[in-house]
């Protein structure tokens, strides 16, 4: 027998973009009238193409490959993370493997019972009680009634909704609803599980609980293909990661290597953006390394007065884990910024506190009440200083603090 759980060979999915919204990877629907109009004009187009005047006859039905020539094998019991930017083809890949849509080319084989969690709470009906929805959602996900009944108490306990189990879910808080939905999904007992971003639900504590559950599932020998934007989750859960870019596999390897390539991509040390007529915008951000300091300067413009402007940044390491973040509310500026429509923030960050790594910066700009402009991971800087006494970053952390040490010899308490 083979120990392969999923094998994909040259999988490809082509979409017609005549009426396609690319972001969702779906067509919009046409009306019969459009089709009739199209059919009526088709003969003319064909004749024109015979005459050879109109070379662009195919442009009336342009297509795009959302996924192309994707081949990989996943071993039984592996947890594989899939990363990529929006529209890269991650979701299309999951939809193909989950049999929601058919591939245009290629072939894939999945060995074992397949379960897919592309969304939490699929098929939940607001008028039905929590109890009813557990059965309904479970059966939609492919569980047998006996299986749901066996796990029923566990699901309710996991979701922490014991008191409300016979209340219609429309009266649930968002948190309760999501917890219940995830709880059902988490008890799906299939050999192969295809998961899309479902961990992005609930508060921090519940997310941790979900991650823990996923890890438990993994230890039972099941195979998981896991699409996520959370580098930290992929880092913690997966043994292997695949990056998809432009519908193709761009990288395949250990999560650390793939994530490093993915977020490092093509960022430089300056970022510029045109001012927006309706929203405050960070128009320019630049990083300069001068002696032992990283100098960050950020310009903004706003169509209205920010009273006063508030700017913040977060620094991530090359694995995408936040290392440090602050803002001028936490670290007040003196004299404080005046209400203004344009300005420049300058921050000096001591570089000698960072071990060698590649660091990425996210920014946000707002006033004390609202964040108007958020730009995630838009700058990067490589720090190669001798900070850290030669200890590697991996295993010792990104932050290096100037620790004070003392030593003295003490007499042995009991002579040997």
């Amino acid at each position, binding site marked *: 027998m083979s120990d392969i759980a999923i094998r994909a060979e040259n999988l490809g999915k082509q979409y017609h973009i005549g009426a396609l919204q690319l972001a969702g990877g779906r067509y919009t629907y046409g009306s019969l009238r459009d089709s009739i109009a199209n059919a009526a004009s088709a003969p003319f187009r064909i004749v024109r193409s015979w005459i050879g005047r109109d070379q662009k006859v195919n442009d009336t039905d342009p297509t795009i490959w959302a996924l192309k020539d994707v081949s990989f094998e996943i071993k039984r019991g592996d947890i594989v993370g899939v990363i990529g930017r929006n529209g890269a083809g991650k979701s299309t890949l999951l939809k193909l493997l989950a049999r*929601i849509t058919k591939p245009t080319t290629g072939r894939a084989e999945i060995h074992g019972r397949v379960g897919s969690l592309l969304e939490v709470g*699929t098929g939940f009906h607001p008028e039905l009680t929590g109890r009813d929805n557990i059965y309904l959602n479970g059966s939609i996900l492919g569980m047998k009634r006996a299986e749901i009944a066996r796990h029923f108490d566990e699901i309710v306990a996991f979701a922490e909704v014991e008191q409300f189990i016979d209340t219609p879910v429309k009266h649930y808080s968002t948190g309760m609803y999501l917890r219940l939905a995830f709880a059902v999904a988490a008890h799906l007992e299939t050999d192969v599980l295809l998961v899309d971003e479902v961990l992005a639900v609930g508060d921090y504590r519940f997310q941790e609980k979900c991650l823990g559950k996923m890890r438990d599932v993994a230890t039972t020998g099941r195979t998981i293909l896991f699409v996520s934007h959370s580098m930290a989750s992929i880092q913690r859960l997966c043994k292997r990661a695949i990056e998809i870019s432009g519908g193709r596999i761009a990288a395949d390897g250990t999560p650390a290597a793939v994530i490093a390539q993915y977020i490092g991509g093509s960022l430089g040390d300056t970022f510029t953006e045109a001012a927006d007529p309706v929203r405050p915008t960070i128009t320019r951000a630049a990083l300069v390394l001068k002696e032992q300091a990283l100098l960050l300067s950020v310009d903004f413009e706003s169509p209205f007065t920010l009273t006063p402007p508030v700017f913040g940044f977060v620094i991530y390491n090359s694995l995408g884990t936040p290392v440090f973040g602050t803002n001028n509310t936490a670290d007040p500026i003196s004299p404080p910024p005046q209400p203004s429509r344009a300005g420049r923030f300058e921050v000096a960050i001591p570089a000698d506190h960072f071990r060698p790594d590649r660091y990425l910066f996210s920014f946000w700009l707002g006033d004390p009440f609202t964040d108007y402009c958020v730009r995630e991971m838009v700058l990067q800087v490589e720090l190669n200083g001798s900070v850290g006494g030669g200890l590697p970053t991996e295993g010792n952390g990104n932050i290096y603090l100037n620790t004070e040490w003392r030593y003295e010899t003490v007499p042995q308490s009991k002579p040997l």
Partner: protein
Amino acid sequence: MMPTGTDPGTANTAFAGIGLDSHPVTVIEPSKGWVAIKLSELWEYRELLYFLTWREVKVRYKQTALGAAWAVIQPLFTMLVFSLFFGRLAKVPSDNIPYPLFCLAGLVPWTFFANGLSQSSTSLVTSSNLISKVYFPRLTIPLSAVLSGAVDFTISLALLVCAMVFYRQVPPVRCLYLPLFFLLAFVTALGVGLWLSALNVKYRDVRYTIPFLTQFWMFATPIAYPSSLLREPWRAVYGLNPMAGVVEGFRWALVGADTAPGPMIAASSCAAMLILVGGSFYFQRMEKTFADVV
């Protein structure tokens, strides 16, 4: 890990014991053109069909003041209006049956058909969140929409029984054929529902044609008038409208209309089967694009 082999549905895979390679293999490939109807797969998903139907039934009359009474009100009031205008004023013949009873015997199966038709036609679009997120045989969606109407049908059938008691109409022995006529109405509703639901995914125009279609079809069906107005071979030809066979069948089986509708019902059964088989193939052919288009 607990194997789920105790379940009869997976027994064949669990039977091979320790061998993990006994697991089912799912093959994902492009498919083209007409494909065979996978009835075995539908059977595998029977529990889902049950839950979807149960959901439809459970939520149908939620947050309505009158609840399931609506299942009675619809045919009852249509019957009253028809009795007044067609029975009293226009003096439409009714095969020697009291006109209200004559009319109600047609309206009860018709209401089931019309509701099943409109529910199933829009079912795929209203379940688009399911279709784009989970795999299961799509056939279960329109099927559950029609099936859920059976509850309303049972309620309105009780109304018909009340009317029969009121008119002291004893049902003849041939009322045992009634399930067959119900099945015929079911097959017709499902067949048309399959065609329209698959079309509706691509062309939302369908939604606008449904009220028009059901109204038109109602007058093309002998509900307010008897099909005995026609002579025989024409009456059988009329049976090509499957609902004509259903309605005349109901009258024959329940309220004892003496117009033996044999040839008509044969024609209706053939027409209904054709619609269902054609609808199934068309549905199956379009199925693979639903998630992309809906």
